[in-house]
């Protein structure tokens, strides 16, 4: 009986972890009008009818640094690769008071010029990236509603 307890505990923890990984992504955001969410996906993904995409993911905040540091590092890295920064980076607080910054970059892709938008949230050991991309003309049409939706984004439920 004493031996079976650790085994049962391990199984329980493993099952809980598996359930957690199968569950919905730990983010929330009000729905931008032109976007549809991939409800069944384990990832946080949205798309418009004409193909503007939005996705959130996490990376390690390593070496641990603040939001300003990472936004600066990202802008420099993207520009060094040949991306053109589209306007100034925009730093703001979400509706729940979480600080974040958005930087948008442009690049030629196929026969079109595309926009890649990166919004960064620093949450303890993680950096949450909200990424959006689309051809310039189509992205421009949903840019405002996208910005409003990102203002409601929450990295943790």
């Amino acid at each position: 009986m004493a031996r079976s307890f650790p085994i049962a505990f391990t199984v329980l923890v493993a099952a809980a972890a598996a359930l957690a990984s199968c569950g919905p992504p730990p983010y929330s955001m009000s729905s931008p009008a032109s976007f549809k969410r991939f409800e069944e996906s384990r990832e946080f993904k949205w798309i418009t009818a004409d193909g503007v995409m939005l996705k959130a993911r996490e990376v390690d905040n390593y070496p641990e640094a603040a939001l300003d540091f990472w936004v600066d590092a990202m802008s420099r890295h993207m520009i060094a690769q040949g991306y053109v920064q589209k306007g100034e980076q925009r730093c703001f607080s979400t509706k729940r008071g979480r600080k974040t910054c958005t930087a948008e970059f442009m690049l030629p892709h196929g026969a079109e010029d595309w926009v890649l938008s990166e919004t960064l949230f620093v949450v303890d050991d993680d950096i949450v990236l909200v990424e959006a991309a689309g051809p310039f003309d189509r992205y421009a049409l949903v840019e405002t509603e996208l910005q409003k939706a990102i203002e409601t984004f929450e990295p943790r439920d």
Partner: protein
Amino acid sequence: MRLQLRRTMLAVAGLAVILAAFPAAAQQKNAAKQKQAAPAAAQQKAQPQAPISAVPTPADPDAAKGGEETATPDATGRRTSLESRLILKVINPDEARATLEKKVAELGGFPILVEDASLVLKVPPEKLSELIAFIAEQGLVLEKTLERADLTQEIARLEGQLKSKKEMLSRLRGFFDDSNTEATLRIEQTMTSIVAEIEQIKGQLRVAEDRAKWAVVDIAFQFHERDKIVYVSSPFEWLNSVSLDRFLEEF
């Protein structure tokens, strides 16, 4: 007969001396002009690219008209060419193109190239900053460059050459009276070649003066270089995962 031969020889010798002396004189004259212009040109070169608002403007762009037009110099007496290149992102390029064509006509300019992805406009130099400000209002300006070249020396050199060739031509005309058939033919040949040179110089002068008279604005609605992105590794590991290709691949 002997006297006539002697006169002919004298005329040819005189002609040869004049022909030899004129280019040398013209060269000396040009060298002196260049020497005078050199410090000013060096000063111009050392100056950083002028902001658009500081662009010198001709006092009267319409003064350069007629057969031998001269470009109007700016307030400092210098003649410059201005060329601006912009990458403008707009949602509807057709609409933007039509708006820009209308505006350039209002400013006294005209389009010289109209394509799906680009537009090249010519505008009086004093209207350049107004046009660029208007272009910026139409969309998102991703890149903007302004090239300014000093044409003063080039125009002065061409004008000097033209003057000396014309003087040479009028002197040659004077030799007709005292020359025989053979000498006349030689003089005619020389004059034909000088006339051709004069026309060539006039053409070069017209081109240079046109460059000084109009500012050129080259607007592209798309990136010029489509293979601009290069992979650069970052010491911050996660930054290496930020790219459009990876985003599209993993979506």
